[in-house]
C-alpha cells in the first residue's frame, strides 16, 4: 500500500514524514524521527513504556496509528528538559531515586506530566491511578509515587 504523508508537532517542532498506513506512532517517532525516548516494551498496550502525549493526553504509542496524528502535537520525554534545565518531574525522579534500570522512566514521566498538567495538586490515589497503566519491575512504585507528589508540591511552591 502507498505510504502516506503525515505532519505533526513533535516536542514543539513541526515534522513531516511518510508512513505506512498501519505504522504505529511509536515506530514513527523512533525509527522515522529518531527520538528514542519512548520505548518498545510489550507492543500490545499493557506495559506503558511507550506512553507519549497526544494533544496533552497520554497515549500508548504502540497502539496509536501515525496517520491519526495528523496536525496534532506530540510530546515525548525528550522534550521535557528546557536546554540544560531539567523538568521538575525529572529532577524529582532523580532526587527520589525513582529509576533503577530506567526502562519504564520515559513512560512514567509522560503519564505523570499529563496528570500534573491537568491536576497540579493530585492526591496520592490520583497519582497511583495516573501511573496504573505503567509497569515498573525495579522500584516497587513507591519512589515513583513520591517523586510525582514532590514535583507537584514543588511546582505549587513556585507558583505561590
Amino acid at each position, binding site marked *: 500500500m502507498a505510504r502516506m504523508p503525515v505532519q505533526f508537532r513533535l516536542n514543539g517542532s513541526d515534522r513531516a514524514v511518510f508512513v505506512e498506513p498501519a505504522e504505529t506512532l511509536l515506530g514513527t517517532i523512533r525509527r522515522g524521527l529518531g527520538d528514542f525516548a519512548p520505548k518498545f516494551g510489550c507492543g*500490545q498496550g*499493557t506495559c506503558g513504556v511507550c506512553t507519549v502525549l497526544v494533544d496533552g493526553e497520554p497515549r500508548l504509542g504502540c497502539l496509536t496509528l501515525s496517520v491519526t496524528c495528523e496536525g496534532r502535537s506530540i510530546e515525548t520525554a525528550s522534550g521535557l528538559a528546557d536546554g540544560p534545565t531539567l523538568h521538575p518531574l525529572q529532577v524529582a525522579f532523580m532526587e527520589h531515586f525513582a529509576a*533503577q534500570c530506567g526502562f519504564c522512566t520515559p513512560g512514567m514521566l509522560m503519564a505523570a506530566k499529563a496528570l500534573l498538567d491537568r491536576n497540579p495538586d493530585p492526591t496520592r490515589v490520583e*497519582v497511583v491511578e495516573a501511573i496504573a497503566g505503567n509497569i*515498573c*519491575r525495579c*522500584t*516497587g*512504585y*513507591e519512589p515513583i509515587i513520591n517523586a510525582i507528589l514532590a514535583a507537584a508540591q514543588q511546582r505549587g511552591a513556585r507558583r505561590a
Partner: protein
Amino acid sequence: MARHQGRGMASINYPIGMNLGGDPSQALVHANPDGKFTVALSAIDLGQGMKQVSRQIAAETLGVPIEDVYVDTADSDTGPHDMGSFASRGTHRVGNAVIVAAKEARGVLLEAAAEELEVNADDLVTDGKGNIHVRGAASKSITVKAASQAAQFKQGKTIAGRGIFLIPLSNVSPETGEMSPVTAYAHACLVVDLEVCDETGDVKVNKMTSAYELGRALNPKMVEQQLVGGAWMGMSHALYETPEPYYPNPEHGGRDYNEYLMPGPGDIAPHDITVLERPAPDGPFGGKGPGEMCANPVLPAVANAIFNAIGVRIDTLPITPEKILRALKAQGGARPQVRRA
C-alpha cells in the same frame, strides 16, 4: 464471607556470591591525561548500582574526588573478566577487585608525584580534592592532574592498576556434605501483615516491617531503593507472578503481559525498613550488599501470614486465590490461628 487478618514472620541468612571456581571479579584502573581515572569492569549495572558503588570505592581508595572517576562497565570484549552482576556478589567481589586495582594505581600516582616534588612517595598523602601533598606540609603539593601528566608526558609511567578478588573454592565433604560456600552472609527479618478473604481467596498485604543487616551501606539511599523495590518483587513472587492456571494443560497458560500479573502501584503496602550495619571484615569498606536478599524473606513471611490468618499451609508459589480456596475447601473453612499483639 469474612476477611481474616494474619501476621507472618521470616528470618533469612543470605550468602553473598557463589562457591564456584573462586567466583572471581577483576578490575582495571588507569589515569587519563586530564588526571581523571577510568575503572574498567565487565560487571554490569542494569539498575543495581554497580557503577555508583564501584565509583565510590575507586575514588575513596585512589584519594581523588568522585567526579574524577569514570566507570566503564559491561563490555566483555575489552573489559577484564568478571563472573557477572548476580548472586548478590557485585558490591563484595567487584568492590574488592576495584580496591586492589585502585591501590596499585594510587601507588604509581604517588611515585610520579614524589618524583616531581623530589620527596619520598611514602611521605605523600592525598586530600581527596585532587591534590597530593607531603604529610604535614600542605604547601609542598602537586595536583593529581599535574602528577598524571608528568607521568605520561615526562616520566614514561603508566598510572594504572590491576585487581582481582576471589574466594578459595570450598570443597564439599563427601561424608557430611559440609562446606563453607561463602565468606560473608547478610541477614534479614521481615514481618508481613495481611488479610485474606475466605470467599474470593484474595490476599491484600497491608504492611511490611523489616530489618536488614547487610554490612556497611556504602550508599544508603541506593540500599533503601533496593530494599523497597526488592520487597515489592518478593510480594510479586509470593502472590502474583505465574503462568498459571495451566491445567488441564499448558496451553491454558498466560502468554503475555496481559495475563502475567504483578502488583501495580495500587497494590503496594507501606514498608517500614531498618538497616543494620555490621561491616563485613572481608567486604569492601565493610560492604556486603543487599542484592537478592531484598526479595527473599517476603515469600515465607507471606506464606506464614496466610497460615496465621486462615490456618492453611500453602507450599507452592505463587499463593493464588485459587490455591487458597482449594485449601480452605479441603480444610472445611478458615481456622484463624493465635495472634499475638
